[in-house]
């Protein structure tokens, strides 16, 4: 039943945004009890039924590679990280909804993973045309996930969600906002789960 071919998805983001909790939630359907700092890269596997319900149904394993560290790491760390970026089929960009810097750093993360050079100024200005160019010819499907939704106060939610919607648009990606300590967000049938499986289908189509 299992395919021999590999589907590799990177999970990128600043340290402390909740990548390990997210990966644990996605793969084991359980909340991670004691999150600790990720050194290097931790991998987990998610089982996915491609084209479920149809006669062509096949079960695949999606490998989620959770790469630790920050964009400002020493270049020796970045060179070591680069070894994980080979033959990637999809990228999940994770940012913390309570921390604006983590959202801005996603640009640098995606550039690092897609093996392109950083802009000389080091500061990326969000300008519609500029960013679309960078990602226009990108074939790898992206998914933007915002974590710690529960820590955003009700009144500020709208403002935060608008901002993240722009972010996702820049990447030409789908977006999900959730709280990794609550499995309800990714429960079967929820809109998030639907988005997730939709992205996975795209992943397989391209691959």
């Amino acid at each position, binding site marked *: 039943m299992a395919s021999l071919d590999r589907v590799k998805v990177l999970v990128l983001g600043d340290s402390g945004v909740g990548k390990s909790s997210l990966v644990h939630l996605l793969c084991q359907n359980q909340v991670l009890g004691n999150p600790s700092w990720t050194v290097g890269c931790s*991998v987990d596997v998610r089982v996915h039924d491609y084209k479920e319900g149809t006669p062509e149904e096949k079960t695949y394993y999606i490998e989620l590679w959770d790469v630790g560290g920050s964009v400002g790491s020493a270049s020796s760390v970045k060179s070591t990280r680069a070894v994980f970026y080979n033959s990637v089929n999809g990228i999940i960009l994770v940012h913390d909804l309570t921390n604006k810097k983590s959202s801005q*750093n996603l640009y640098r993360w995606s550039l690092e993973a897609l093996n392109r050079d950083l802009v000389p100024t080091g500061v990326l200005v969000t300008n519609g045309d500029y960013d679309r160019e960078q990602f226009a010819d990108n074939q790898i499907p992206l998914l933007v996930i915002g974590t710690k939704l529960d820590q955003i106060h009700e009144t500020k939610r709208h403002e935060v969600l608008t901002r993240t919607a722009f972010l996702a648009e820049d990447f030409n990606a789908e977006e999900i906002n959730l709280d990794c300590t609550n499995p309800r967000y990714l429960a079967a049938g929820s809109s998030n789960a639907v988005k997730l499986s939709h992205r996975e289908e795209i992943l397989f189509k391209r691959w």
Partner: protein
Amino acid sequence: MSFLIDSSIMITSQILFFGFGWLFFMRQLFKDYEVRQYVVQVIFSVTFAFSCTMFELIIFEILGVLNSSSRYFHWKMNLCVILLILVFMVPFYIGYFIVSNIRLLHKQRLLFSCLLWLTFMYFFWKLGDPFPILSPKHGILSIEQLISRVGVIGVTLMALLSGFGAVNCPYTYMSYFLRNVTDTDILALERRLLQTMDMIISKKKRMAMTRRTMFQKGEVHNKPSGFWGMIKSVTTSAPGSENLTLIQQEVDALEELSRQLFLETTDLYATKERIEYSKTFKGKYFNFLGYFFSIYCVWKIFMVKFWSQHISFILVGIIIVTSIRGLLITLTKFFYAISSSKSSNVIVLLLAQIMGMYFVSSVLLIRMSMPLEYRTIITEVLGELQFNFYHRWFDVIFLVSALSSILFLYLAHKQAPEKHMAP
């Protein structure tokens, strides 16, 4: 009238230093984090500003700029403010931010941070007992009491850093010590790392599949609860779950291995970069600066005397600039290495504390590099501290730190070649 002019000059320079500290904080230290508590940034910049002003006053002393009475006044004022910051404000805020991170104590933050501060004050006071730093005729709350203790901490820090720096700098750049790292070495390690990741993945796939079949068969992987649960788990132990725990142990071991390999690869890349850097012009220039700073430290041990105003001014100026620059760079590296989004506030405040104490004790030690006629103002302002004690203490700690660094680096250097042998 001249007092007003002098004061306005001082205040302008203080504002300039404050701005520099602010920019440094924003652009360098906190460039990957979000500043949510501006009070941290303000405290850091203020500490930096007043520390730099002290050095500025020393330079003015040597050059004879400004009226001597206004210099004296500003010395006293600066000293009071900096002691206020280092002994009262920064420790209190450090305690406050530590307590804020702990969820349990969140409600009574202020109370617990006051308690922490009182504990700090108690140990800070006790610090003065074993050291012969004061003549007993001073009162309890005088400047001398505070400065003497701050001086001890700062001088110890300076000596530790200088000792380590004096040994580490040549070790890092001298090609004799640099292990020869080839690209093949790095590639071999990377291959091992990826192989380990693949092994982890295949084991996790087995686990996922096992869990899925168990779930489909209705054996829910729950912990047994209650009396009947316990009995059930004894009689019907699912073979699947036993298998899982076994594989999980193997996975844990492999994950530990992957972390080791990752760190080793990073190490190799860093060494390779150092080799390339030492061959460039910039690398050689900084290498020279590093040597200069180390030589200065060694010089202190042999107590060379200076003889003219210009030389002492230039030398003191270079020492100050190199110290500030060296300290800021070291602090930045340290900060990047250990901070995370939660602890960044606490760590920056700790750095501000270290920086303030370091600069205060630099003033104490620099007194020795100055000719007699310029020492008077420092002696006047700081009161009757036993300066000789500080110089001897610096030398002792410097030697201890240098020797331990040599030992430590020797052991680390010896261990390294064994790690890279073929498995």
